[in-house]
């Protein structure tokens, strides 16, 4: 924790800022990319959102109070950015967020940055049928392999509630895949 405080101080100090931010980028660009990509699904959108996320992180760093960990704070920004992006894109196309996600999944088959087969597509389709919170929990637990404690910090819920959410999500997904 003291290390983190030191690191944040480096990020805020104009002299060390660049080096520190570069370290932050190289440490977190991959996990945050996966997190965002799992929400927005295609690479170009994930690229946009990831850039915006880091720019916001940089801008809001001076307001970071240290009440939560830097890690979960950044994940929260990334999650908000990705969800906002999805909603805006859906609105722009005049369809619901769910319809947009379904469309994006259909397009995945032709996506050069997607290397999956039927089961991956089916799993994604199953995930879309879940409520937003369950989608997030499932993706973070199953794909990103985050710990419940970490997810709890990011989403601001209790570990117990998360376990229940994940359990529900798995059941619904299994049911969907079995019957489709």
């Amino acid at each position, binding site marked *: 924790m003291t290390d983190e405080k030191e690191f944040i101080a480096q990020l805020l100090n104009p002299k060390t800022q660049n080096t520190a931010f570069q370290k932050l*980028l190289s440490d977190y660009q991959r996990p945050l990319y996966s997190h965002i990509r*799992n929400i927005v699904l295609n690479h170009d959108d994930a690229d946009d959102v990831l*850039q915006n996320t880091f720019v916001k992180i940089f801008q809001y760093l001076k307001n970071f109070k240290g009440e939560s960990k830097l890690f979960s704070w950044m994940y929260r920004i990334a999650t908000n950015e990705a969800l906002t992006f999805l909603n805006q894109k859906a609105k722009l196309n005049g369809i619901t967020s769910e319809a947009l996600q379904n469309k994006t999944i259909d397009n995945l088959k032709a996506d050069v*940055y997607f290397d999956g087969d039927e089961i991956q597509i089916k799993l994604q389709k199953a995930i879309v049928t879940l409520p937003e919170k369950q989608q997030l929990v499932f993706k973070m637990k199953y794909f990103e392999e985050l710990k419940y404690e970490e997810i709890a910090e990011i989403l601001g819920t209790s570990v117990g509630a998360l376990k229940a959410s994940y359990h529900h999500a798995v059941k619904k997904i299994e049911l969907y895949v079995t019957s489709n």
Partner: protein
Amino acid sequence: MKEFKLENESKITTGFKTPENYFNDFSTKVLNQINEGEVKVIPIYKRKKVLAMLAAAVVFIALMIPVVNNYNNTSKDLDANTLETYLAYQSNLNQYDLINQLDTKDIESLNNNVALEKETLEDILSSNPNIESLISE
């Protein structure tokens, strides 16, 4: 169809890939964007604000022009018709009041008018049969 169980399956990956070297270039891209934002975006935003305020001020002034003009017109310049109507119907002016308002200049210009009509005067006098009585007066 057999029941699908996530835990019985081998781990299903997302299948998401990124372009080659994406993460190598990414940090440079973000750092550029941030530096650009610091140097350029903020002044542009401020300039935009000033421009917007300026535009608002211009529009306000433009909207005020007819109001100000009308205000000056109505307060200072009475138009001739209104004045005449007022004097004719709303006041107690009589001929004496009007005569009192005449100065020498007005009288001179009246005389000039008469002089210009000399020929007409002659015509009238020569055709008038009671010319003698006029002279004797």
